[in-house]
């Protein structure tokens, strides 16, 4: 007996197993970042007047703005790669998925320069509470980016995407699920950017 509802939807719930699974997973991710965001709010209230604003002004807003655009673009190419599979165009899928990976790498490179720039100025997580929460939140977000890149890289490389020839529908679903995760990681950054850089 096979496990049912891997590619076809269960009639009464209208979901495949993995679609429901990723939403439950994202719910827990929201609680993880929600916990950290509330810690940020709590610490900001507890901090001396102007402390967060002072340390926040040391962050590099142009770099973060570029990174925001880069991540939003990667979300778009992610959608396009899934849409290409839906239209049975595997070559286009490879291109858009490659672009997504490229954007993700650009994000990491820019983040690397941001981090090392801070270290050169002697700014570390221990420098202040704001810097602590900045490095923790962006670091955890970067781990999510790297995790996403590993999964997407697997689906991009030949040994990961050979499922396209055997079970194309299931492979398309996998890209959709990976995409939902990727949009979530993007969304987290959309929240991180204003509260860390702009506030």
């Amino acid at each position, binding site marked *: *007996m096979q496990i049912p*509802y891997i590619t076809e939807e269960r009639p009464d719930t209208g979901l495949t197993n993995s679609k429901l699974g990723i939403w439950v997973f994202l719910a827990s991710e929201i609680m993880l970042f929600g916990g950290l965001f509330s810690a940020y709010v709590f610490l900001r209230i507890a901090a001396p007047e102007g402390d967060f604003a002072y340390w926040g002004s040391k962050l590099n807003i142009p770099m973060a703005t570029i990174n925001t655009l880069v991540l939003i673009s990667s979300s778009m190419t992610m959608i396009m790669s899934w849409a290409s599979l839906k239209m049975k165009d595997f070559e286009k899928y490879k291109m858009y998925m490659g672009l997504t990976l490229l954007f993700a790498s650009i994000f990491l490179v820019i983040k690397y320069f941001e981090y090392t720039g801070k270290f050169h100025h002697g700014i570390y997580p221990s420098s202040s509470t704001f810097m602590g929460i900045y490095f923790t939140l962006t670091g955890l977000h970067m781990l999510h980016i790297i995790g996403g890149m590993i999964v997407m890289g697997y689906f991009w490389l030949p040994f990961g995407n050979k499922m396209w020839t055997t079970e194309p529908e299931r492979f398309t679903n996998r890209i959709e699920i990976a995409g939902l995760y990727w949009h979530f990681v993007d969304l987290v950054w959309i929240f991180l950017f204003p509260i860390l850089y702009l506030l």
Partner: protein
Amino acid sequence: MSNDSHHEENFLQKYIFSVDHKIIGIQYGITSLMFLFFGFCLMMVMRWQLAYPETPVPYIGGLLGETGILMPEIYNMLGAMHGTIMIFLGVVPLAVGAFGNYIVPLQIGAPDMAFPKLNAASYWSYFIGGVIMLASFFLPEGAARSGWTSYPPLSIFETGQTAWLIGMVFLITSSLLGSMNIIVTIVQLRAPGLTWFRLPFFVWGQFVTAFLLVLAFPPLEAAAVLQLMDRVAQTSFFLPSGLVYSGAAVDVYGSGSPLLWQHLFWFLAHPEVYVLILPAMGIVGDVIANNTRKPLWGYKSIVYGSVFLGFMSFIVWAHHMFLTGMGQAMSSFFQTTTMIISIPSVIILTSFFISLWGASIRFTTPMLFALAFLPMFGIGGLTGLPLGVGASDIHLHDTYYVIGHFHYVVAPGTIFALFAGIYYWFPKMTGRKMSEALGKLHFWPSLIFMNGIFLPMFIQGLAGVSRRLYDGGQSYAHAQDVLQWNEFMSISAFCLAAAQIPFFINIFVSMFNGEKVGRNPWQSTTIEWSAPSPPLPHRNFENQVEVYRGPYEYSVPGADKDFSPQTEK
């Protein structure tokens, strides 16, 4: 995946790195029982020190240093690890990992869990977390010493905390993967005809529990990450400005808040209480219905009650924090929600009691454990009410009263229910019944000695004896009148350990020599009993199961036998 049963599997694939939910369930079961036993042994060492302070511990004293006396640092270590191991490595993996994995797919007529590989990943992540926790005893700095609650600022200065935090991250990952899987399995893989209100109460208990784990654990993970940063990157999320430790000012930026940890920690740890109790209630519900030969009374109110319980458990966490000075308004809010959350628990417990009314009860071993659960959990729950009200909590906070309260919920409550589950489903797992005589020899002494340990704690706590005292209160004036209980409690604990010997003998003897049984030895109605014993590898049932009726149709008027299985038309 589920369809590869046609090719031969070698030993490693079949029993170690299996993706079959039944094997993983048994792996979880064996590992967590060993951790439960280990956690209990840690406590027995501590109880020796409490009963006979500063005398060498017999038999294992050599492990504790040259004198054989349990020193305060190690006492703290054992205390912290006892709590951590019992909760995160013992009871939850047994209730959710073992029973959830093994029974839920069978009770909903599914061939396996929805994500078999994630299921295996969940077990191995738990295993790694457990190894890290155990290994931390052998690190030069030793295991964690700041209690299972790990309150900062002390936990940040105490050695051994880093390994604890890393171990916790693995355990949280494990429970996240496991509970995700349970939710998807229950929603998606129910057999045709198995509507929501035809689910056995055990499945409902697991379903609500899985939601609690998915939503409550991540904030603790967030808190663990922050505390890890405090320890390894010298941040000061939980360290206020101007902190002095061991006579020297602490060199950190400051402006953090220890209260933040308490909020994040209890946001997990209160729902965690319901994670401990809901699967237990599920087992008790099934066992009671089966052994009273009656439908469970008020099935729908029990289900609604457990869902409401799950929801409310997210907004009561600060009743652990009345003494932190968080303010009148906050305290009033959390007192109110705490009083409200006792209502669904009472509904569930009352329904179980009424289910017994007028029944011709079969006093089998699982039923004895399930029956003992009711008053024991009742005592645990009712003694919690004074702790939920600020005024009385000020006196009782951090005393042995609290220890007695939550041990009544978890030890003779949850663990008794888990024993009931083991005796009840053992025939399904092995095809053989456990010995009833040995089972009763296990039950009665366990019941007596459990009460021998925990009942005097209320007396000591009301007298004002603080928890976590290395000498059990010898040096405290207000503890002098209740000191004599220490020895009584310790002897009860040692006897309780002896009372578990019949249980272990029973498992091993019954596995090979127990009475052979067919599919349905208890004449039960739920779906797992229509599968062979043990169920087929990787598919459970010979054919697709179809469900025609509710979960507890016992003694249906006009039926030719006193149980009508869900799978029979």
